[in-house]
């Protein structure tokens, strides 16, 4: 549930406020914390430390690791396959971010309101976001079936669009994956935008209308400026989500056909677990982690700036 990241980060920030000073028997605090700290150490911090250390080593099981300095990083960055994968990752992250925002915003504007039928439509539209990725992938593999009588080709046939190869052609595979990402991401953005729209002062709309502004100018001059911080958060979150993409690619195409949808994480997975290049795979993960952390900090910064206002 990447989507809950913001909520939790906010909770954490508030939780970090100074604790009430109540000198009770406090020595047992560590006992209460022990299960959480042990699990986090074993399954988060130890793997993290090993990833960092492996990224500087030539990892050779049974032979002992050899320190190679930045060699793995050089190998990764010099590998055309990695650069291609990084390119695909960025295309997907940017494309899914923009696509989800545009579609999500359109949905939010269309479905804003308190009427019951709107609520039902919103609920229906939101379903892709709660659907497990494994099911989304299985479903879209069927929808994308590349024969002329495949489900999507049939629907497109109704409006006169020709059959496509989708996931099966290197020319369209990346876009097909991107479309699935938008299908799943747009409803989430819609909900965030709806919450943002709900916070816009209604009297501003009336004032704008009194000044003779039509719906579009109201949108542009009243609603959008009020929602600017929401845009910032949605963009950063979607970009972070996009960079670490793995499961959808693994299940939809596994990087194929012909490497046309290979992303950083699927490549790292193959390098690490299928080809045992643990050092190089770790270096690749580290590069991605740095990119993710930079984006996360950017998200925090945006929220701070908004709160300061």
């Amino acid at each position, binding site marked *: 549930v990447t989507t809950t990241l913001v*909520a939790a980060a906010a909770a*954490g920030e508030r939780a970090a406020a100074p604790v009430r000073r109540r000198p009770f*028997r406090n020595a047992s605090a560590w006992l209460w914390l022990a299960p959480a700290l042990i699990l986090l150490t074993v*399954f*988060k911090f130890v793997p993290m430390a090993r990833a960092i250390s*492996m990224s500087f080593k030539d990892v050779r099981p049974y032979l002992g690791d050899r320190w190679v300095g930045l060699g793995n990083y050089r190998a990764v960055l010099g590998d055309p396959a990695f650069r291609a994968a990084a390119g695909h990752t960025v295309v997907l992250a940017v494309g899914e971010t923009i696509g989800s925002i545009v579609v999500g915003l359109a949905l939010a504007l269309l479905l804003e309101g308190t009427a019951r039928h709107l609520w039902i439509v919103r609920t229906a539209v939101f379903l892709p976001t709660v659907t497990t990725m494994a099911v989304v992938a*299985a479903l879209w593999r069927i929808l994308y079936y590349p024969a002329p009588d495949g*489900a999507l080709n049939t629907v497109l046939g109704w409006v006169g669009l020709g059959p496509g190869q989708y996931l099966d052609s290197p020319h369209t595979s990346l876009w097909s994956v991107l479309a699935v990402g938008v299908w799943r991401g747009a409803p989430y953005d819609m909900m965030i935008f709806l919450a943002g729209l709900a916070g816009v002062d209604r009297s501003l709309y009336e004032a704008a209308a009194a000044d003779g502004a039509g719906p579009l100018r109201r949108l542009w001059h009243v609603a959008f400026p009020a929602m600017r911080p929401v845009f910032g958060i949605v963009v950063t979150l979607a970009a972070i989500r996009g960079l670490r993409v*793995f499961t959808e690619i693994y299940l939809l195409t596994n990087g194929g056909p012909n490497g046309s949808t290979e992303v950083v994480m699927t490549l790292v997975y193959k390098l690490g677990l299928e080809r045992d290049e643990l050092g190089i795979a770790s270096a690749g993960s580290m590069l991605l982690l740095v990119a993710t952390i930079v984006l996360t900090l950017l998200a925090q910064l945006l929220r701070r700036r908004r709160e300061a206002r």
Partner: protein
Amino acid sequence: MRQLDTALGLGAVRGPLGRIVKVALYALAVFVFAGPLLALLVSAFGRVTDPTRLTLIPHDLTLDNFRTAFDQGVLRYLANSLIVVGGGLLLQIAVSVTAAYALARKQFPGVRLVLLLILSTMMLPEEILAIPLSLVLADVPVIHVNLVGTLAGMIVPVGAWAFAILVMTEFMRDVPIELEEAARIDGAGDVRIFWSVILPVCRPALGVLGIFGFTMIWDQYILPLLVAQDSAQFTLALALRSLRADEQVGTGVLIASALLALLPSVVVFLALQRQFMRGLTSGAIKG
């Protein structure tokens, strides 16, 4: 002015043409986003013979797909999924409430550092830790246990989830200190206070934890992928991939299994929608 309730004021659109356009747009949105899932539901009960057919119109209803799916061991995968989600959720809640009790109700040196450490794990995406995590799972430090090939390997790592701990901490912080002091004067110890004073007050937060924990564990894919060695440990999500690759198994079976994997999360979402939405948007909007 009622028509200015929304940014575009679509509620004010009247007249036959306006209404038709509006309803057409609603229908399009539902068709695009819910249509494929509805087709999955309907087709699971239909006679699907080739991989190109998905249908939105029920006809010739049958349970054959499920029968064949159960013959293929799908019940086993479903049971595995339920064991993992049940065990993981219990562990996650237990770990979260105990940690939150210390973080919210106790003053000790290092509390801020611990909070920072917990928060920092949210910046470590599981995808990026996948490879070193697989090494740790194969040989857990200190106790040297191999969790690969066991359902426990899918349960234990989800036990500590920063989001759950932080949400719980936040909630426990708001429990009035007087309740705790009164119990302490009566001679109650930490455990008694935790169990019979703090936890009962936190019941609403436990509900929220349950929803998000369930969704988080049900959506797990990488962890089961790293842990499972053969089909005996497959969860439903993992099984979908091998069912797809298996030429002997028809698309009908795949669709029926996908429906089984889909239903729990949708049911939880529909049943607890209000809490779900609040949790989802509150952080992003209110900060």
